[in-house]
């Protein structure tokens, strides 16, 4: 059955199905029950499954994730909601020092099927700590799977796969795309959680994006086509592991790589992809891989966010750069 849903309703449908399929699945978080979450992703689930399974917790992120670990010891599959990206840090210790490492530390005896949902990214004119992209911290941490959806279909399928995963999953939700509609096939044969998806085929440039910027990347590919360029767009979907095989195959074909994400550049996902693909495809590259990212600054105030977020024009400028066309840095020198 197929239905038109917004990304947030698709997540809601995926969570409902997960709750129905397995009675060890629990949802926990701040304001997720009666209110249905500040983005309404869990709307109606408390009424349907009860306060025992859709749990409004005290206001404490370390508490949410820490108690989820204890519940995992008892065989539960907790799905934790962190209300906004910038509020995950009180739980950072529990995630990095505990969730990520306990399977290893227990010699594999303990599994941690914990999903941590995080609305992330900017572009909604929010106040501080409400627009961040902290995914690289977690992708840098062994033991965590890190994924992000970009459309309603993947939202529905990937949240179910994340909840079903015996590994802990950081599930990043592109909050500015919550209201974007798309077809959701509830019986879709989902791609494995760790795989990327080619969302537009092309032959000149490989453009890698994920989460909120996939839509922007697709727009850029359309605009580039008007300029006679053929851009292949890859929705990465998984940030740990990265599906390098898919990216490699594309770059072997195009010879050029542009990566875009909202998160700051240094030490980011783009750096990892650029390095790994350079290693794998060195002799196929026609130009140095380019990153179009947020700057290495804190996310700025709302009235300045357009001067932080990668957009269509900045992506096209990088496409021009890898194509050797005139671009903003033509003739530029560092001095």
């Amino acid at each position, binding site marked *: 059955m197929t239905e038109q849903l917004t990304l947030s309703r698709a997540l809601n449908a995926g969570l409902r199905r997960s709750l129905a399929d397995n009675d060890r699945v629990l949802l926990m978080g701040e304001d997720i029950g009666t*209110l249905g979450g500040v983005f309404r992703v869990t709307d109606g689930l408390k009424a349907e499954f009860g306060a025992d399974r859709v749990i409004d917790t005290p206001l404490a992120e370390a508490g949410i994730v820490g108690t989820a670990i204890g519940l995992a010891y008892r065989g539960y599959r907790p799905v934790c909601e962190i209300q906004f990206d910038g509020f995950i840090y009180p739980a950072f210790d529990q995630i990095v020092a505990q969730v990520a490492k306990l399977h290893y530390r227990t010699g594999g005896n303990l599994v941690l099927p914990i999903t941590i949902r995080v609305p992330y990214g900017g572009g909604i004119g929010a*106040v501080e700590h409400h627009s961040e992209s902290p995914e690289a911290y977690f992708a840098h941490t062994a033991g965590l799977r890190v994924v992000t959806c970009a459309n309603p279909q993947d939202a529905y399928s990937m949240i179910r796969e994340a909840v079903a995963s015996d590994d802990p999953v950081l599930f990043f939700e592109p909050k500015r795309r919550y209201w974007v509609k798309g077809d959701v096939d509830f019986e879709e044969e989902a791609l494995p959680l760790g795989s990327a998806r080619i969302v537009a085929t092309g032959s000149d440039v490989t453009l890698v994006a994920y989460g909120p910027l996939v839509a922007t990347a697709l727009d850029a590919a359309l605009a580039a086509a008007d300029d006679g360029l053929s851009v292949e767009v890859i929705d990465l979907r998984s940030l740990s592991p990265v599906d390098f095989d898919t990216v490699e195959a594309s770059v072997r074909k195009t010879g050029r790589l542009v990566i875009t994400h909202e998160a700051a550049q240094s030490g980011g996902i783009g750096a990892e992809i650029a390095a790994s693909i350079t290693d794998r495809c060195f002799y196929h590259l026609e130009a140095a891989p380019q990153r179009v990212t947020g700057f290495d600054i804190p996310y700025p105030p*709302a*009235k300045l966010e357009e001067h932080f977020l990668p957009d269509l024009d900045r992506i096209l400028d990088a496409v021009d750069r890898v194509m050797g066309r005139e671009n903003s840095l033509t003739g530029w020198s560092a001095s």
Partner: protein
Amino acid sequence: MSSATSVDKSVDGEKPELAHKQFEEPRSDLPGLGGSDRGGPDERGPEEELVQILTPMGERISQPVLDTWVADVDGDQLVSLYEDMVVVRRIDVEATALQRQGELGLWPPLLGQEASQIGSARALRKDDFVFTSYRENAVAYARGVQLVDLVRVWRGTAFSGWNPFDVGMATPQVIIGAQTLHATGYAIGCQKDGVDSVAVAYFGDGATSQGDVSEAMIFAASFNAPVIFFCQNNQWAISEPVGLQAVRPIADRSPGFGIPSMRVDGNDVLAVMAATRIALDRARTGGGPTFIEAVTYRMGPHTTSDDPSRYEDGAEHEEWAAKDPILRLERYLESAGILTDEVRAAVKTKSDEVAREFRAECVGLKNPEPLSVFENVYAAPHSGLERQKRQYAAYLSYVEGGTR
């Protein structure tokens, strides 16, 4: 100081270098005292343990301990407290309207919490320092923050509306509870410097669940820091009722950390002021930290983005409307013959003027320069960031040149 327990005596009888305060039984002379032997909410209604000077009907009742701390508050000062409360409510209403009109991105109303904020902030000295959450716009007003500076962060033009050192007030904190540790550290600094300034942490009922707040109380108690934990229990943390954060009154929590507490009617400006003065006096004279729970109600939504109809019970709202902080002071001032038509008119003129100025300055706020995003990331130059800034400058002139 009680000598019954001596935790700071080292084995050989020498005082350790950092002489921590000996454990002290919560002081029994504080009104609305939180002690370990108190009954839970089931044994005692929350109402009767609230300390109050002004009843909701505006009657002034005798409260022997508190009265002495506000004995100096004369008619003029009462009018001035009243004026502040009326003005901040007006600012709040105006800001909500500005948000609805698209001039502000968001606004967290303080409606209903005027007495908690004005009563406490007006008790402070200039050299005291406050660390607040996002909702304490009345505290900011009382600290002397300029009107336009109240809205910068909500309009999205800056992350800090003012220089903290100009007004003795930190940049409002969005990360729930974090500021309680900052206040405690500031207080430890005051103590080390031998000054009698006090740090005040403002936070909500929801915040008391955060680990940071417990850690702040532990540090404050261990170092006997001159800090006040001022908790506005407005009954809600977004949609979550206070009962989810605390199964006993919030004021019951700090005594376990060795910090005495008071539970005051947060809609009674005089009771709040008296309690704050007691806590300030303790802090200034080496008495250490105090916890104040100001029991109040969030009469508006959590923020302008919130829809309380999804979770709030209308009857409870009505009940609290009858305990309005401004209304009760008004009633008292009327019965005392202080609120003359003249005074009323003057307060109205003042709040009209403030509202007009507030709106005009808000609407007049310009967006900052694009390249300012790179400023103040570091105190010293950073080569990597400099490079990004220059490249982005090149990009901006390239796109403005119309090439792309």
